[in-house]
């Protein structure tokens, strides 16, 4: 008998903060500078150098904690996490352990375990065929990234599908983006997610043994990686096997999951309070400063889109949870008028289908152009089908919708001008069997006649008007 399993997923998210300088020294953050040009004795871990915590990073962490409804600690401390690796110059990472800056919190019904501050590791580059440290001819270290401020956000294990995990992470990303605390770009590594995955018999409330899936660097890979791990665990359990607690790597190219280390190889990090740093005492003033900078969060924005523009809940979520879509939407509505807001949202769906994950503001379709197109459709100056053709052209080459319509002769044909009625008449005459079937009550057959009219008018005719004329001429 097959047992139905329920996946239980928790996420650990690392967010690179967009401060000017690093977490514990005055080096500016690096954006592709030549290797080892953004370093100093502190972030190189030279003998005698000491860390000093970045007040701006603490401010950002407080903003994140407030935005996520966390409990903010009056006093939190840094710990040392000790392990040897060439990308870790001091032999320990300065992180937070049992006294983090934020605990608890909630985002869209998923509870958070904690939010804490730490420093990023440097970047290792392995020279040779293997591309990994084992078997490489040589490994070199670029310390530019070392010491970049990170916030780690840990959820409770309350997600139950790869899709939900992806959607929730999208919302988190939008929330962080709206705070302006990070570039939150997964491909560039400013947002990184690990997933803890376990299965349990459906209906059970106990947690199964979990595995940790490391560093999936896009939303798609996150979803695919978790799905692959769920499948793997399901297969193991169905075959009567047991899940080993281990750290795994998902290879998006092959879909394969490989083990990085088992529980036996798990390290003892020998955490202890960092004696080189003083505790963070969170003052009322610091909290007030963080609260003052929060701005509008995505969930509040979605609510406003419903109330202010009358958007459907689903549209409002889609737009608000990807901040750049929300921004574009508001810019376009300003041109198209609030009455057309839902139409703007619908046409943005068309736009997103064409440009994918790209920020629409960076596309060739300027918000006023989309607004103009929506207005033309609303005023029946252009048919929906023709408008899609205009949008294709806008995406490909940019420009003004009105000019494209004029240039390509895509303007709508008016029902009253005998031309469209004539076209309908010719279509009926050309396909008497279709006309017969429609008269006989087969409504689907009307599609053949509409299609013929659209071909004839190259899509410029308004579909509703054509339907009306066909039925009128058939005496229905």
């Amino acid at each position, binding site marked *: 008998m097959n047992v139905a399993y329920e996946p239980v997923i928790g996420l650990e998210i690392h967010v690179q903060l967009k401060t000017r300088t690093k977490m514990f020294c005055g080096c500016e953050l690096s954006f592709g500078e030549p290797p080892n040009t953004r370093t100093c*004795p502190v972030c*190189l*871990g*030279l*003998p*005698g*150098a*000491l*860390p*000093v*915590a970045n007040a701006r990073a603490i401010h950002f962490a407080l903003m994140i904690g407030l935005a996520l409804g966390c409990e903010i600690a009056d006093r939190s401390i840094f710990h*040392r996490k*000790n392990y*040897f690796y*060439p990308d870790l*110059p*001091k*032999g*320990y990472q300065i992180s937070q352990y049992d006294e983090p800056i934020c605990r608890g919190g909630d985002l869209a019904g998923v509870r958070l375990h904690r939010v804490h501050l730490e420093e990023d590791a440097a970047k290792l580059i392995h020279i040779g065929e293997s591309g990994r*440290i*084992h078997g490489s001819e040589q*490994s070199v*270290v670029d310390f530019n990234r070392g010491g970049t401020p990170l916030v780690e956000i840990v959820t409770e294990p309350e997600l139950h599908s790869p899709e939900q995990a992806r959607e929730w992470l999208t919302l988190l990303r939008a929330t962080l983006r709206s705070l302006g605390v990070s570039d939150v770009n997964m491909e560039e590594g400013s947002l990184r997610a690990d997933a803890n995955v376990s299965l349990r018999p459906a209906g059970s409330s106990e947690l199964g043994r979990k595995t940790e899936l490391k560093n999936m660097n896009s939303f798609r890979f996150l979803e695919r990686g978790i799905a692959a791990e769920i499948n793997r665990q399901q297969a193991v359990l169905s075959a009567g096997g047991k899940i080993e607690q281990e750290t795994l790597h998902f290879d998006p190219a092959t879909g394969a999951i490989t083990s990085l280390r088992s529980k036996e190889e798990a390290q*003892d990090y*020998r*955490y*202890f309070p960092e*004696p*080189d*740093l*003083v505790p963070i005492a969170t003052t009322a003033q610091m909290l007030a400063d963080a609260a003052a900078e929060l701005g509008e969060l995505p969930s509040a924005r979605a609510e406003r889109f419903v109330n202010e523009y009358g958007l459907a809940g689903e549209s409002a979520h889609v737009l608000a949870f990807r901040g750049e879509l929300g921004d574009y939407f508001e810019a376009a509505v300003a041109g198209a008028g609030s009455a057309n807001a839902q139409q703007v949202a619908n046409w943005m769906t068309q736009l997103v289908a064409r440009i994918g994950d790209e920020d629409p503001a960076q596309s060739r379709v300027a918000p006023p152009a989309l607004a103009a197109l929506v207005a033309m459709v609303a005023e029946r100056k252009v048919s929906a089908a023709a408008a899609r053709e205009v949008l294709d052209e806008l995406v490909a080459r940019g420009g003004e919708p009105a000019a494209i319509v004029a240039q390509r002769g895509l303007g709508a044909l008016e029902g009253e001008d005998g031309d469209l009625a004539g076209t309908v008449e010719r279509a009926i005459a050309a396909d008497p069997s279709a006309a017969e079937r429609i008269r006989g009550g087969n409504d689907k057959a009307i599609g053949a006649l509409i299609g013929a009219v659209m071909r004839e008018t190259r899509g410029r005719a308004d579909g509703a008007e054509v339907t009306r004329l066909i039925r009128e001429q058939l005496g229905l």
Partner: protein
Amino acid sequence: MTDHALALTASQAAAAIGRGELDPGQLFDLYRSRAAGERLGAFTWVAEAAPAAATGGALGGVPLAVKDLFCTEGVPSQSGSRILEGYRPPYTATVVERLARAGAPLLGKTNQDEFAMGSSNENSAFGPVLNPWDQTRVPGGSSGGSAAAVAGGLAPWALGTDTGGSIRQPAALCGIVGLKPTYGAASRYGMIAFASSLDQAGPLTRDVTDAALLLSHMVGEPDPRDCTSLRFPEPIVMPSRTDLRGLRLGVPAELSGEGIEPGVLAAFEATLEVARALGADVEPCALPHAPHALAAYYVLAPAECSSNLARFDGVRFGYRSPDAADLLAMYESTRHDGFGAEVKRRIMLGTFALSSGYYDAYYGRAQRVRTKIATDFAAAFERFDFVVMPTSPCVAFELGAKTADPYAMYANDFLAVPASLAGIPAMSIPNGFAAPPGGGTPLPVGFQLAGPAFSENRMLDAAFALEQALGFDGSSIRA
């Protein structure tokens, strides 16, 4: 000129330079040639020439010997370790920079126990330091090079560091003054760390006035590069007190009897009599947790060092084992070859104490003891201005006498570590001589004062009054 200049304390020399009676370049050359030609093993590097430009500043250009573990730009800073042999840092420690700016140019770097771990200076990768009073004996440690250099007239004054007695104990064994300031008073930036929550820089000098003068330029505004450094609440002033009237001195029973050589105790008792004669009220006091200080110290300091020394991994600087096949082998043989036995012992102790499952029993408990000791001192300071005790339980011992017995070596520190754990200032002044247990030429003994945080001015004043009354003379070994 030579004999005259050598006889001057650092403060007297600075004053003579100020009056135009002494040329700072000649003074530098005098000490430079003495340091370059020394046979005590006190220096690991000596400046080749006086600084080109006159340094000026309040200290006039009186040269300063600096413990090896202070980073000095472009100058070997090896912390007594093979793993840092030839390492020349790209920057200078804050206190060394402040002192240079104030007019104390770098004379040389002094030998020390490796990474400041030791009480005899026998743990240096660059050889032991000899005690100028008896060259068959140790100078104490870990700032043994600094202490021997000042006592032997190789430097007018020196900078050391104290984690669990590393300034005070060698000062006592070499017959000079050594002061460990309040934790946080002096910046630790650029000090190659041993145990971060305990390490403090401080002066080793011929007399109390020199200690005050050097200290006055080490403390003040907090260092923005060391967030554990603190603003000193007042300027350090030159001591002038000639009596101890109205001062209450507490003598902790736990730290003034058992485990101390009779000669050292006799000198201590004699100094208490001098204090009484100067008007002090001397009474017994209690530091009930002090007997546990050594055990707590030898958990906490190794724990911190096991982490602080992780950066010596052969990747970026210092020694790297040339023949390792892979990363793990490179780490292992670099650290195996680069560190000495005592350093490895403490790394292993500390790694164990922090391990999962042992943390609470060792590190956690030691931290609680530390808090108790600080509370003991706070209670004592409600009744007493200072707590006084001998600095070291013994006079300088013979080279090799304790190297085979780590516990006997650690036990040297038991009078010094309580103040270290409490983070309070403490200093040692020479208070006479005592014959070693087996007999022989009498050797210097140190008297220790410990006071509340930031009580350095009052402590220096009391030490100055005692110093005048005691009349200790160390000039014979500077010739």
